[in-house]
């Protein structure tokens, strides 16, 4: 008898039980997993441009400006202040992030007495040119990240997420 069937009684039971059990478990687990992974699936917040400096204040020497904006943390809104290094390259505004591309320390302009015309990172002596290009032979392997910018009525507005150059 048993041999006449493609699916044995035992196999049928196994499939039926695993199927129903799996369906029930999925019903319980699925909402929780979707709940847990929500942060990576939520639409990115619109990157509002922030007023940071007056074009007239900019020179060809990088200066540190404060960028203040509100960051939405879900149930809390945080007032964030970040530092941005801004200078003019001809007519072009260049806004660089002070986060070292080696391991994330904070760079400063001209603090290495031997290289007063470069950005300097105190952690492992990383250096960057004025336009952010990393100096060969120092630890960083890519240029400082750059902020998207816009000039409106003589004021410089920046996006809040610097992106890699190149």
């Amino acid at each position, binding site marked *: 008898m048993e041999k006449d069937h493609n699916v044995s009684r035992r196999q049928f039971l196994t499939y039926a039980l695993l199927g129903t059990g799996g369906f029930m478990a999925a019903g319980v687990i699925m909402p929780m997993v979707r*709940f847990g992974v929500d942060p990576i699936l939520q639409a990115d917040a619109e990157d509002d441009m922030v007023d940071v400096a007056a074009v007239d204040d900019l020179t060809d020497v990088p200066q540190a400006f404060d960028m203040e904006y509100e960051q939405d943390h*879900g149930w809390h809104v945080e007032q964030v202040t970040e530092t941005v290094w801004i200078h003019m390259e001809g007519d072009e505004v260049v806004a660089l992030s002070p986060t070292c591309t080696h391991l994330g320390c904070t760079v400063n302009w001209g603090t290495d007495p031997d290289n007063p015309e470069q950005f300097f990172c105190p952690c492992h002596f990383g250096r960057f040119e004025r336009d952010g290009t990393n100096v060969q032979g120092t630890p960083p392997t890519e240029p400082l990240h750059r902020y998207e910018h816009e000039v409106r009525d003589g004021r410089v507005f920046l996006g809040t997420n610097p992106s890699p150059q190149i």
Partner: protein
Amino acid sequence: MLQRIYDWIDDRVDVTPLWRDVADHEVPEHVNPGHHFSAFVYCFGGLTFFTVVIQILSGMFLTMYYVPDIVNAHASVEYLQSDVAFGMIVRGMHHWGASVVIVMVFLHTLRVFFTGSYKKPREINWVVGVLLFFIILGLGFTGYLLPWDMKAYFATQVGLEIAETVPVVGDLLSNLLAGGEFIGAQTLTRFFAIHVFFLPGALLGLIAIHFIMIRRQGISGPL
């Protein structure tokens, strides 16, 4: 494919006896609802465990968003419920599940009582069961404060006043539970710690003892 992965592992570490030990045992006729439908009363223990598992899983996920702080607790619950995908479902599972666990424990206890399953040699498991019941009540009590709304606050106030009625040590007990003289930031963090670490730990430990004893002693005989 799965079979071959299983065999490969089994060849090396011999896992078959492990799960056989857990899964392979007689289910006597008198507890099988397929034979006598009324035997469904024997399911309540398993259903209690199932709802406890749901409470633990949904609670772990809620803890990804919840903060036990008087300024942010309520806002975080509102956020996770209304802005996070499936938030209403996951919080709903935990909220309603909390009541379902208590109903299931109660029905399970009734079954054990009316089948006389607490008698020798199973007295210790009855005691463990009563402790489990208290732990589950404790989880309900401490969890209820966490959303930090009016109902949470006043329910805890009532609970603490009940604790105060304990002779001699009542005041001490209430202050110990609340972490001070009044319900505030210290009460919330304390209840949170008790709710997500202390009681679930005790619950899992006692459940393990409960199950090991059931396997040792077998299910009690027919009436």
